[in-house]
Each structure stands twice: as structure tokens, then as C-alpha cells.
């Protein structure tokens, strides 16, 4: 019997009150964004935001609780943009969106940082302080392929070496994480800028390196469309993911179904079911139907776990709609019970 789990890869919008407070405290310009050593009122405000985001998820009834990643000014590039060995360059476009992040220019060895582990410790304390026994922590990191894709290498000098160094760095970060049930590795670049023919294994090796650093279930979340079939096959076979996350909102879902029918699937699966980039809130019944439709298309429809997720991060949405999307996911698991 497949377990259905409502979860998200985090990276939520700031509550509206915090948008104003933090912009007053930090400023609006490129140089005012987070460098990772904040203290005082800024750190306090982020603490309050974290508590609010954890509450949002518990209230919605999600099965996993993310830290919310409110500090991630640069979205999934965050673990690098706050790193000591990284200088931030100009503001560059974040995938095909009207959003921008600071270009992380890696200028020295990527040694241990602990920035994300610190956030997760704080989130774990918040969860322990509630009665959220059924909603353990989900950690989020960029996948090594996407993080290397978003960054500029000015130190390692070789693509393969750079990707491996990023994977080792991320693995080191994961080892410092507090106990977590699930680790989401976000890999949109696998869709938008897939590895060149013949270099797929380098990407899957990098992912496997990070996955090996945790005992938790690892979800490799791909989004902004369907995966190329050859790359899909590599990911299923080599990435050591417990679940591959597939975007059923953007792009052609027939392609995604074809991949699963042709090449099989990971033991568990994550389905991007609610649109993280549109304010239209899906009915729980619609979300549930999408799950059943997909599971029905898969030849061995016997996933250990099906994760019900948004297709992307949720920071694109206004506050009220982000909350509504969390509720839709949680309610959909109840429809399926």
C-alpha cells in the first residue's frame, strides 16, 4: 500500500509584515542582501518568520515540515552566496522567471559552512516544541548539478572538478544536519539545461554523493517541465534517490508518463501537483485525481511512498495563496485515504 505524504521543498514567500521589516533593516540594494553573518534584529526577525512558517505548515496539516528558507535571498543559490569562498557578482536572471539572484563566483576551496544546518537546528527545535509528532523535518538543498549550473567557477578551472567539489561541499553540509526524515535536492537545471550527451553520469554521481551523506529519504525534485528520456533513465538508475520528483504542472506530462512507462521509476515518487507559479488554487479532489491518474499510468503502480508536492518552490506566490497551496496538498492526502 503506497503511503501518500504531503510535503514541500520549502523556499516560501516572506510573510507580508516581514517583507517590510526586513527591507527596512537590510535595505533594497544588491549589497544589502544576506551574507550569512547577520545578527541582532535581523536574526531575530528571521527567527520569528521561521516560527510562523513552521506554524503555517502544521496548521495546514502537511506530513513533513520544511524550515521555509526565508533567509534564502538568492533562492537555491543561497548555500553558495553566503559562503566565505564565494564573491557575489551581478544580479542575474533566475531561470526563465522575472526573478533575480546574485551570481555566486566561487574563488576558493568550498569547505564546510554550516549555514543551512544552523537553520535546520532552529526549525527542529520549533517542531520539538509543538505536538507535531507526525510531521518530522524535511531538509532542502539545491542539487549539485543545479548549484554548479547557477554558479561561476573562478577557482577549480574544470567543469567536472567543480561539480564534484560542489557535491562534496553539499554532502559535508548534509552531514551536519540535525535529524531529518526527508531531504529535498532541487534540480531544475536538469530540465532547463540538461547535461551534455555523455556527461549524464557525472551529474548522477554528484547527486549520489550528496544522497549518501544522509540516512533520510532523498527526493531529487526536478521542475519547469519534463525530463529528457535518456537523462531520466540515468537518474532512476544511478542517482541513489529514494524518489525522483516530477513536474506534472509545467511542460508535457505525457512525456513524463512515457519516461516512467519506458524506463521504470524510483522506489518512491514525488509528484509536482500544485502550481507553485500560479495563484489559482487547486481543489484537493483535483490534486487527488492527478495522483491516482499518475499512479494508474505507472506499470508497477506500487510506490512505497508518493510525495504530493508543489511543482516548484512557493516564493513566487503572494502570502495568502502560498498558504492555500499548502492546505490543498494536505487535504488531498485526506481525499486519498
Amino acid at each position, binding site marked *: 500500500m503506497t503511503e501518500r505524504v504531503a510535503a514541500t521543498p520549502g523556499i516560501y*514567500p*516572506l510573510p*507580508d509584515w516581514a*517583507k517590510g521589516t*526586513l*527591507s527596512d533593516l*537590510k*535595505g*533594497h*540594494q*544588491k549589497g*544589502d*542582501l544576506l551574507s550569512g553573518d547577520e545578527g541582532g534584529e535581523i536574526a531575530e526577525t528571521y527567527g520569528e518568520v521561521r516560527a510562523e512558517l513552521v506554524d503555517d505548515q502544521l496548521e495546514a496539516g502537511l506530513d513533513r515540515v520544511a524550515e521555509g528558507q526565508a533567509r534564502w*535571498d538568492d533562492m537555491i543559490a543561497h548555500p553558495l552566496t553566503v559562503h566565505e569562498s564565494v564573491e557575489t557578482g551581478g*544580479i542575474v*536572471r*533566475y531561470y*526563465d522567471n*522575472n*526573478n*533575480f*539572484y546574485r551570481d555566486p563566483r566561487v574563488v576558493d576551496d568550498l569547505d564546510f559552512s554550516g549555514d543551512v544546518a544552523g537553520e535546520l537546528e532552529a526549525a527542529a527545535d520549533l517542531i520539538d516544541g509543538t505536538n507535531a509528532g507526525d510531521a518530522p523535518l524535511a531538509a532542502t538543498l539545491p542539487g549539485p548539478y543545479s548549484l554548479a549550473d547557477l554558479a561561476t567557477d573562478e577557482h577549480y578551472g574544470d567543469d567536472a572538478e567543480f561539480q564534484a567539489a560542489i557535491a562534496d561541499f553539499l554532502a559535508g553540509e548534509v552531514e551536519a544536519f540535525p535529524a531529518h526524515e526527508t531531504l529535498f535536492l532541487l534540480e531544475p537545471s536538469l530540465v532547463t539545461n540538461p547535461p551534455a550527451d555523455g556527461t549524464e553520469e557525472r551529474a548522477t554521481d554528484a547527486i549520489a554523493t550528496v544522497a549518501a551523506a544522509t540516512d533520510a529519504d532523498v527526493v531529487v525534485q526536478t521542475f519547469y517541465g519534463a525530463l529528457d528520456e535518456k537523462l531520466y533513465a540515468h537518474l532512476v538508475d544511478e542517482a541513489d534517490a529514494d524518489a525522483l520528483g516530477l513536474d506534472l504542472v509545467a511542460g508535457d506530462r505525457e512525456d513524463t508518463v512515457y519516461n516512467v512507462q519506458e524506463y521504470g521509476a524510483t522506489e518512491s515518487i514525488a509528484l509536482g501537483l500544485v502550481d507553485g*507559479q*500560479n*495563484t*489559482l488554487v487547486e481543489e484537493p479532489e483535483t490534486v487527488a485525481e492527478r495522483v491516482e491518474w499518475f499512479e494508474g499510468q505507472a506499470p508497477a503502480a506500487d510506490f512505497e511512498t508518493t510525495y504530493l508536492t508543489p511543482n516548484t518552490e512557493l*516564493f*513566487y*506566490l*503572494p*502570502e*495568502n*495563496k502560498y498558504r492555500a497551496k499548502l492546505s490543498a496538498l494536505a487535504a488531498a492526502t485526506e481525499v486519498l485515504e
Partner: protein
Amino acid sequence: MVRNPSANREQFRPIDHPNDSFLLTTVVGSYPKPKWLNRADELVEDPDSKFDESDLAEAHDDACRLITHEHERAGLDTVVDGEMRRNEMVEFFAERIDGYEFNGPVKVWGHNYFDKPSVVEEVSYDEPWLVDEFEFTTNVAERPVKVPITGPYTLGFWAFNEAYSSTEELVYDLADLVNEEVEKLVEAGARYVQIDEPALATTPEDHAIVGEALDRIVSGIDEDVRIGLHVCYGDYSRIYPEINDFPIDEFDVELCNGDYEQIPTFEDPEFEPDLALGVVDAHTAEVEPVEEIKENIRQGLRVVPPEKLTISPDCGLKLLPREIAYGKTENMVEAARQVEAEIDAGEIDVDAPLADD
């Protein structure tokens, strides 16, 4: 198919224009708001204040009068009110078009947010959007007034689409509404309308959608009305020469910011609409000297002859300190007048404009 820019350009030449050559000078639209206007915008939200909506309307009128006159004082041939009544280029129109709703701010980058609206039902036209604003400005102005309107592609793609099966369909419906608005503006006397489509720069592969939308916008609009299209911060090799098929009189583009590296893109094949060239940077807080701006104007002559060249800042100037915005505008006009005189005197070879005189 390009419209007929030579049929509408001369009406903007001032009676007392000093030179035979005429480089039409204009602005993209937005201009720094006087600080007191920002305070007034906040004050009206304050429940403890006696300052109310009618006071704010008066403040907006005052600011529009002030900036229109500031444009005239800088010597511009065509003027704008500096968009003193507008907050943001999508929000302002979404508030006036039925079918949009607002849910709150979303992140663009860092702590910069935008109240990105959602289209929740078919869009429709209710009250005119800009006719009152145009009538006010044209009454206080001595020079012809240009009206900037955010284009349907940007109004569609910079919103959440909840209602249409494709955003392309939404864009075409919006284009029909823009057409209705342009008709009303023309009835009110407007002769210079600029469609702003910054979103095209981020998704140049959609140029055909923008072309189809423009066809709808200009449907039934006489050729004595000048229709411009403003785009900024893009890779123009991806939309040129397709621009030549757009039904516009003038293409307005920022190239000063990129040091005119993209000028060769427009040299071949022959550029068909008039070129409105950005000759001062909208994102540097130093006023360019007249001599430097004259060099920038010569870059435009590589693409079109003087009778097809319009002179403009790169983009709206609203993010600059006001005295810098004024200085840039004033120097820009002075540079245009000097280049005209040099063309008249044969000191600039318009076929080889970068050659030393």
C-alpha cells in the same frame, strides 16, 4: 508591416525650431516624483491625517503640471507628465481593467517586491484609463503630449493567469482593450502613443505574439497618430529583423547602457520604422556631457537617416535623483540641437556619421 512614420512626424516640429534638420526629442515616460508627492501618497493612507483623496488628487495635478513644465523647460519637443499618477507599470493598469485582482506583493529579487495581480476572469473595459490624465496634461502643456501605455504582452505575462487556457489568448484580449483606449485617447486629441513592452526582452521568442497584439492595437488608428513601441534591456538579435514587420511608426530602445554594442544588429537589413534611440543612461547618476551625448546620437545615424531618428533617454528616469534626471534631459536636447546644426552645415556626414568632421 511598418506604419507610415513620415506621415506624422512633422506635426511635432516646433514652429520656432532653429534648424532644417529635426531630430524629434522625447522621453520614455517616468520621471522622479517630488519627495512631497511620495509623502502625500503615504499621508492619504494615514487614518489620523486629515489629508484625503481629494487633497491627493490636487497634489497629483500639481505634480503633473510641475513635471510637464520641467520637460518643456528642458526643451523637449514632446512631453509627458512624468507618470506622476502611476505607481507601477502593471499595477496601475490592472487596477483599471476588470478581470484583475490583487493578492499581495511577490518577490522580484532581494527585498524588491511587486504587487503582481491575478487575472481571475475575462478582462474587460470599464472606464477610460488615461483620458483624464491626457486631457489634464495637454491643457497645461504648450508642447505635444506623448502617452505611454503598458502593452498587453507585459500586462499579460507579468500577471498570474488563472482564467485563460493560454496567456497568449489573454494578451490578445488585452490588446483589444488597449485598442479601445487608444481610440479614446485619439478622440481626446492624442497624436503620440507609446506601447511599453519590457516583458518582450525577457522572452524574445514571443515576438510573433507581440506583433499580433500590435496589429489589434493599431486597428482603425489613423496614420496621423504616431505609435511607438518601447522595449529595454534585451538581446535584439533575437527580435530583429522581425521588428520591421511590427505595425508601428517608431521603435524605442535603450542602447546607451550597453555602450551601443548592439547597433550593428539594426544596420542590416534596412531599419524600417523610425528609431527612437536612448542616448543617456537611466541607471547612472551622473549627467552625461553634451559632447558625449552627441557621439551617442551619431550611433543612431548609423541605423537611420536624421529624418527617421528620435532622441530619447534609455528608459524611464524615475529611479534617478530629480536634478540628475533634469540635467540629462536638458543636455540631451542641447546635444540634439547641436547635431542638427552640424548636419545642416554639412559637418556630419550622415552616411558615415562616426567619421571625424
